């Protein structure tokens, strides 16, 4: 099942996909363009932990002139960074290089502590797509990538759908692509991750408890380009969804 969270006529509603439209939880069928899309994950009682990987595809690490890491390069985000499908992410007027990052995102389904990689898939509720924008002008070599680059308000669109784990039999063989104004600028496959999803769940849960609703953004492959105001950026992952964002 593919589920979403939207605002329709001023009210937050859960929705599912039906025939290319949205079936709201009150039974109404509405068009994708008729709603305001929210990140597709339900609010959590405590603040959600959002883990994001850097340099997790060998080609992207090379592109950024880093050798592939020996352990995951991970940073955290606050919920202020999240944004919905079909929303706008702001580019500050003074910057020279702002790029998208198309990332398979894991949504944790149950509390995970010291999980073995062979059991890791049991702890996943589903998958969605993140566009983890970065503004490289603000990179500094202190806790890099620093939060000024990666934790900006609304600069991590998520969605459109939360796709049940059962509908993605092999998350490690999904094509990823990004288009800017309809032209393909990034393409890759999740099979090229350096640290795959089961490894990441084993690694993180070895020192921290992951809780339902926590997110793991698994990194992006080669092919990031600068995006300008007005550009329409679509980050798409096979079977998971196509997430649209406009640079504002």
């Amino acid at each position, binding site marked *: 099942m593919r589920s979403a969270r939207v605002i329709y006529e001023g009210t937050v509603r859960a929705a599912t996909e039906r025939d290319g439209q949205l079936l709201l939880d009150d039974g109404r069928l509405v068009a994708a363009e008729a709603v305001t899309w929210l990140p597709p994950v339900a609010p959590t009682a*405590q603040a959600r932990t959002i883990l994001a990987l850097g340099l997790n595809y060998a080609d992207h690490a090379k592109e950024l002139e880093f050798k592939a890491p020996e352990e995951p390069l991970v940073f955290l985000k606050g919920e*202020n960074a999240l944004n919905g499908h079909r929303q706008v992410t702001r580019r500050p007027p003074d910057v020279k290089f702002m790029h998208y990052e198309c990332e398979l995102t894991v949504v944790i389904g149950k509390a995970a502590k010291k999980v073995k990689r062979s059991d890791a898939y049991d702890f996943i509720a589903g998958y969605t797509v993140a566009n983890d924008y970065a503004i490289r002008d603000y990179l500094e070599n202190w806790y890099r990538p620093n939060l000024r680059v990666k934790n900006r308000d609304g600069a991590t669109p998520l969605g459109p759908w939360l796709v049940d784990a059962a509908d993605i039999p092999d998350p490690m063989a999904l094509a990823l692509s990004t288009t800017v104004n309809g032209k393909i600028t990034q393409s890759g496959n999740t099979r090229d991750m350096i640290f795959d999803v089961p490894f990441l769940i084993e690694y993180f849960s070895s020192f921290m408890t992951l809780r339902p609703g926590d997110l793991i953004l698994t990194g992006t492959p080669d092919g990031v380009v600068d995006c300008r105001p007005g550009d329409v950026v679509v980050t798409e992952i096979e079977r998971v969804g196509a997430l649209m964002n406009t640079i504002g």
Partner: protein
Amino acid sequence: MSIGSLRTVYGVLLNSRAEFEAWAPKMSETPYKAPPKAPVLYIKPANTWSAHGADIPLPASVPEVEIGATIAMLMKAPGEVAGYLLMNDLSVPHASYFRPPVRFKCLDGFLGVGGSLLAAGNAVDPSRLLLEVRINGELKQTVAFDQLVRPPRQLLAEVGEFMTLGAGDALMLGVGANRPRARAGDHIEIECEGLGTLSNRLVAEGA
């Protein structure tokens, strides 16, 4: 103050002037190459939160932890501070500040939160607060907030330039230099007039 009402908790690196100055000679070297320009933040996620009085588990792989006694500004709304709160920002000691410190700072229970909330107001100047840190009853460190690289108001303003701190979010003022270390079995107590006491005991995980 209930931990349940917290949202995202942020820490700030190198906000103690004494520690910043101690680091200064290294700041132009590899891998840093330049002193930090904007505030350098990190997050202490919800799995790290330990209430006053709670035991904090230390994995066998972590023989000792660094105590990061500090004060957090708890937000009421963007730009508006509800009050001040004691925090114990524990870390696995780490020498490099190049990569984000998730596996050093985000272990279960690694943020003591507590004492009582000192409501913000004209009569309260957080830069005048003084913390006393005791391990097993012995005074190990005092932390003052009158020598910060970015005083509270400036820190809030500079962080606010790139992200919004909303209701329930907290921003720590930074830890002092020469932080004491503690081991399993130790009892850590952080005390501050007006903010009460935050005490936690370190216990060996699984013991």
